[in-house]
């Protein structure tokens, strides 16, 4: 099983570093053994599903490994969910126990039974992840031990993870990114440097960890770069690989990124929770000059197809790392996991529109499902765009949804004026209001005087437009 690669290690090299603890592999093994006996005393048995409801820490890493050694499926549950959503997720996961930290001492983890309402249907999974709930209800994604092992083998090879190699772990433990920066790192003898959750939004704390712990591999969502770019971070020449994933590549931060990570290979990595990473591209100056960074080519063992067989369409992928399917998947008219007539592999419908250029590189163009919920109302972004484009002063409009701490989701509109007539944004609001539901009226308007960023086929590049225009809104 995947965790035996970690528990077999006894070397003195550091395994886990977090704010409070630095453990060697031997110390990690001791902590795992201690957690294991505690969890067994609490009643955890092989074959059960156990939800980990603890923040990322050296101890929660040890507890996860202890659960895996017992032979339980570990549900790495998202943190910060509302009580109702969490109860629903726990119920659907079929969890028998939830592992929680004691409030008085976050290092003490114990398992408490949860009222299980759904038996996990033969859940032989090693790990259970959930998709992010930005659209609709989070889905449960079981990962088999063999898939975790294959992914770790790829990651170790691709980024040179081996004994003593320090890897920064920025994302929460329940994110699929942890498969690389925590689990693959430990399986191959590296040192995982944890950014504690309470420090993740504080640039000076993250910078302090970079300076003190000198990670050689940094996997980051663009949010981390934006955070650090606004802070005075000294150059990090020890970083060999800087891996960007999760959203459009932040082209505008390239000069800063080159100064701060002068020796790093910079990668654009594409994947989703269902399939794990599936494309990789080494970012070059030429990509930046073209202001367009591809997701690159499929990883070894990954098969990619474009729906319809052309050069542009929905991306279908089959990876060696993917889930066998959602847990408790309801019947679906358009199932995300399916077979193609000419292949014996199961493909996953990504929902992403890609364009394949003549050199074989794939570019992300758009999301296929352009339906979002605003104030609980299903809203078609395409419909709002066509209403805006009907306004006499508007040549073209792109509408996108942005998470908002107060309203949940708000719509932004990027507007290209017609014939140099700068539209009055108050008039645009009224124009939309007369033709659309109140919730479908965009809250923010960005008038772009010259042109919209475009894809090679001349369509608005929605991924880049959103990344550029919400730059200031994210932090």
């Amino acid at each position: 099983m995947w965790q035996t690669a970690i528990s077999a290690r006894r070397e003195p090299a550091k395994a886990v570093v977090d704010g409070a603890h630095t453990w060697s592999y031997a110390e990690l093994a001791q902590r795992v053994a201690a957690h294991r006996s505690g969890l067994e005393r609490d009643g955890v048995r092989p074959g059960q599903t156990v939800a980990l409801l603890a923040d990322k820490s050296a101890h929660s890493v040890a507890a996860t490994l202890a659960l895996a050694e017992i032979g339980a499926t570990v549900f790495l549950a998202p943190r910060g969910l509302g009580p109702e959503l969490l109860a629903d997720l726990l119920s659907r996961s079929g969890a028998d126990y939830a592992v929680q930290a004691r409030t008085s001492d976050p290092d003490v983890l114990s398992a408490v039974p949860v009222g299980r309402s759904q038996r996990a249907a033969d859940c032989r999974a090693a790990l259970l992840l959930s998709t992010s709930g930005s659209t609709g209800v989070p889905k449960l994604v079981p990962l088999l031990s063999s898939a975790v092992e294959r992914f770790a083998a790829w990651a170790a090879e691709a980024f040179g993870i081996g004994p003593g190699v320090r890897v920064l772990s920025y994302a929460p433990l329940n994110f699929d990114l942890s498969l690389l920066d925590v689990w693959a790192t430990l399986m191959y003898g590296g040192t995982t440097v944890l950014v504690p959750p309470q420090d993740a939004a504080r640039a000076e704390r993250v910078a302090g960890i970079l300076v003190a712990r000198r990670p050689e591999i940094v996997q980051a969502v663009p949010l981390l770069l934006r955070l650090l770019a606004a802070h005075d971070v000294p150059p990090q020449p020890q970083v060999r690989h800087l891996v960007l994933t999760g959203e459009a590549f932040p082209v505008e931060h390239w000069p800063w990124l080159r100064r701060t990570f002068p020796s790093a290979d910079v990668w654009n990595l594409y994947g989703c929770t269902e399939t794990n990473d599936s494309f990789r591209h080494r970012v070059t100056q030429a990509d930046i000059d073209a202001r367009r960074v591809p997701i690159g080519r499929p990883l070894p063992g990954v098969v990619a197809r474009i729906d319809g067989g052309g050069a542009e369409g929905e991306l279908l992928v089959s990876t060696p790392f993917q889930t066998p399917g959602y847990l408790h998947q309801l019947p679906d008219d358009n199932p995300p996991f399916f077979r193609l007539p000419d292949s014996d592999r199961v493909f996953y419908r990504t929902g992403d529109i890609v364009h394949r250029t003549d050199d074989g590189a794939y570019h992300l163009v758009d999301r296929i499902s352009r339906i979002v919920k605003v104030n609980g109302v299903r809203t078609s972004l395409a419909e709002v765009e066509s209403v805006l484009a009907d306004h006499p002063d508007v040549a073209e409009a792109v509408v996108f949804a942005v998470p908002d701490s107060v309203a949940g989701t708000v719509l932004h509109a990027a507007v290209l004026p017609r014939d140099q007539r700068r539209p009055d944004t108050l008039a645009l609001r009224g124009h939309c209001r007369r033709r659309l539901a109140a919730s479908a009226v965009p809250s923010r308007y960005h008038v772009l005087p010259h042109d919209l960023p475009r894809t090679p086929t001349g369509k608005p590049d929605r991924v880049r437009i959103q990344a550029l225009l919400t730059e200031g809104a994210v932090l």
Partner: protein
Amino acid sequence: MTTVTPGAAVTAAVHDHIVATYAPDTEAIPHDFDLLDGGVLDSLALVSLLAWIGRRFGLPVEDLDLDPRRLHSIADIADFIAANQP
């Protein structure tokens, strides 16, 4: 029934808050502009606006007999504040 005329300061404060919070891409909104029909406020935004009015002007908004549909414009809102100020 007495009519209380709102001070210019109240009207300006309401105007600036609405522009900053709900329509930062505009510079000015006419005081008689219909905020609901004009797509600046929806019912949810109106609730958050009322909460702000309560805090900013010390009005017991929850206790007032209030028909939000009467608060269509910046002028309406300023009148409402003036009429209910303690």
